């Protein structure tokens, strides 16, 4: 009886893990990534998800001329260095943080408004393909008010 109850409780705990992880992702985005955008003003949008090693994410957003932006890509500590690149509508790569020491942020402004794509890649730890780690990745934007 006691053993069955213990097993049942374990089921409940495992069932609630996804909610817990998502809640942690929100806190991670707020407390780690948003804070790092300063002195840029966070736009208020929330883009965060729990990603597995090897997983990719894409984000489409229009950026406006005469505005200075900071893109911040924050990955949980257990994920290693997250790679991100910025691509224009023709597929031309405009920036890739792997050529800049995997810097987590990129500051830029535009002469004309553009819709850009942000591609985020979570690295795979060697020898861990059968047991990939997962962690929160947040994509956040800040802008500078004139």
């Amino acid at each position, binding site marked *: 009886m006691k053993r069955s109850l213990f097993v049942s409780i374990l089921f409940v705990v495992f069932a609630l893990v996804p909610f817990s992880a998502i809640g942690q992702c929100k806190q991670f985005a707020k407390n780690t990534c948003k804070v790092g955008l300063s002195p840029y003003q966070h736009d*208020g*949008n929330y883009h*965060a998800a729990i990603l597995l090693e090897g997983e990719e*994410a894409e984000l489409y957003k*229009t950026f406006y001329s005469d505005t200075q932006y900071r893109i911040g890509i924050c990955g949980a500590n257990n994920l290693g260095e997250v790679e991100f690149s910025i691509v224009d*509508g023709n597929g031309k790569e405009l920036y890739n943080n792997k050529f800049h020491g995997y810097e987590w942020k990129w500051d*830029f*402004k535009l002469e004309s408004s553009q*819709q850009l794509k942000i591609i985020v890649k979570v690295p795979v730890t060697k020898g861990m393909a059968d047991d990939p780690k997962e962690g929160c990745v947040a994509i956040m*934007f800040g802008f500078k008010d004139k």
Partner: protein
Amino acid sequence: MNIKALDTGKQFLLLFTFLVFILGSCVTDKGKEAKNADSSGLSKDFNANADDDLTEKINTAKRIFYSLPSPLETAMLIKNAGAVYDGDLLNKVENTSKYNTNLKMALNLGIYTTDLSYASLFDQTQATLSYINAAKKMADGLEILDAIDQATITRLEENINNRDVIIDIISETLLNSSSFLEDKGLQGTSAIILVGGWVEGLHIATSLVTPGTDLQKNKLVERIVDQKLSLNIVVSLLENNKDNAEAQVLLKDVAELKAIYDKITIEQSEITPVEDPNTNVTMLKSVSTIKMTQAVFDELTRKVKELRTRYIS
């Protein structure tokens, strides 16, 4: 198994275990849903066959986010385009009592938040207080519990003359709302809020363009035309929430806007990134040319007014 043959304790244990399995599968599904559709209109496209090994699965998984300008960014764009403040353009706070459906409350949460952002960027203290209360009513109606609480309003009142703090409070409020909705798997509601705010931005901007102005040289007009670049994002945001009938209703409205925007041409040259080594800020150099007639601009203005009037009615 003969249920009747079990004693009460075992029946209880069996029932408990069964409930745990049901609960577990529900929560896990919801968690998957939230994971698969996190953030504003995020969708996930697994191309891998379910039988493929894990490595192959994670290599082909791709999550897609679509990001519209937030109410705060919209207000900033309007202000930086040289616009003035006109409180008469905003949705009256007395209208809050009219909004009783989820669709109307979500649309007007977006609308009021854009009005709030616009008022705060122009240091309109009384309007800022009025609009955060209006936004709170909409958020409460949608049961977005931790978006705008009394402590938020008190903090805003205490810092009413400090624009930086006010903007930070608005940013925090937006983040709380959208993350709450994502956590609850309500991406459709999140999309409707964003569309409401986006249309309000278009309404304010189109209303502030002085009649007879040279469309080719007006910064506000340029911002309005720039929204053509976000139309596919708006469509994707709404289409990704096919289970939300209210979000689907808005698709027709967006299609009507798109039909007008399709008459506007934006030609763009190749982008060349040039980094400033002193500031580490990269300039994306390119030239953009807009072609739009006065008739098309007038048509766009009328359509925005029609949609916005319907949303606030």
